[in-house]
């Protein structure tokens, strides 16, 4: 029930967006978000609402860090 899925916004009309993941489209409201979102942004969708924007820069940063810390040489 608490399931929430990262999806990409494919269209936007006021507070209503259509978001998509793996070819499945869903309508969602962005009225709970404090920040502006645009088509192309990734959001987490839960029970018909976008509950958070996924920040691509932070995602890249997290991955970079993971790869750095957990590279094969990093293991002692």
């Amino acid at each position: 029930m608490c399931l929430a899925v990262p999806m990409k916004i494919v269209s936007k009309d006021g507070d209503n967006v259509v978001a998509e993941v793996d070819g499945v489209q869903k309508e969602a409201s962005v009225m709970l978000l404090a920040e502006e979102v645009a088509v192309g942004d990734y959001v987490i969708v839960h029970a018909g609402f976008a509950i958070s924007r996924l920040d691509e820069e932070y995602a890249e940063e997290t991955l970079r860090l993971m790869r750095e810390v957990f590279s094969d040489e990093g293991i002692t």
Partner: protein
Amino acid sequence: MKHGVKFQDEFRDRGLVKNMAANIRAMAERLTHPVNFMEVCGTHTMSIYQHGIRTLLPENVRLVSGPGCPVCVTPISYVDKALACTTDPLNIVATFGDMLRVPGSYSSLMEERAGGADIRIVYSPLDAVSLAKNNPERRVVFLGIGFETTAQTIAASILAAASLELKNYCVLAAHKTMPAAMEILTADPELNLTGYLCPPHVSTVIGGNAYKPLADKYHIPCVVTGFEPADVMQGIEMLLVQTLRDEGKVEIQYSRAVSWGGNPKAQAILHQLFEPCNTLWRGLGVLPDSGLAIRGEYAEFDAERVLALDVPDALENPACLCGEVLKGKLTPADCPLFAGVCTPESPVGACMVSSEGTCAAAYKYGR
């Protein structure tokens, strides 16, 4: 063209996860005591079972599932109240699908629906508002359960109903707030918790700062962690680093979705609609200020006030060990009913009903 989520595959990269496991094993050799890290999010529970995370960890790094499944922590008395709502032919009971098969004292919503009660499954609380709008001669009672993540969407639905001036929409609210439960579990010496993988979606609302009082008071490491396998592994690694350094602070691993302050707009809406109340958690008992009650200003949307529901004391199945499973004291396999009498097709306890329940996850992804 299909749009996958661009980072998803990378956070599921098996090679990366394997390296992370090796690193964790190396670090764990420096531990003087075994550690118990608890996850309190149903999505974590599922992900940990689905991706076999436990099998990647050394024996002295234990993962314990806590009360992260909203359906599972909902007491039987709530289900009984929901069932009572179905007896009035005026009412349409609208609910998330997970609630349907949860056994109440005498019946379940599924059984009542088979018997003709008007019970509708909705994907979003806004669908329940539309139901009310399209059925002006009926009354829609929405079953509002869940943590902060879901509570904000239900608050939004009440605001939507208010702006449409609907007089036939109300919510049977039993929302719960997570940090209060974590405090009780942390204080339990039997559980002996060493750290928390804090819930990703709840934290998008309340922010990393919400765990600071807990971390400070109990000197316990708390890491807000995403739910992909590489996220979970990194969360565990961060907890281990803190443990080895004898630190007890809050960190955010899931920085791509969670900030320190959380979502101010969602917090304002939650505050506008709800006030803290004492509430009964299945397995944990009544926890002070851990629930969200609809404020007096919105009484006309509060099913408790509108319907004056009075139900007899709830009957628990004494053989069901859900309460102990929810506290992380027992694993599903410790329950004599697990996989025999109690299965997802015919669940005895709530932990077997919801796909995020520990018993259901254990059943589906190997015991």
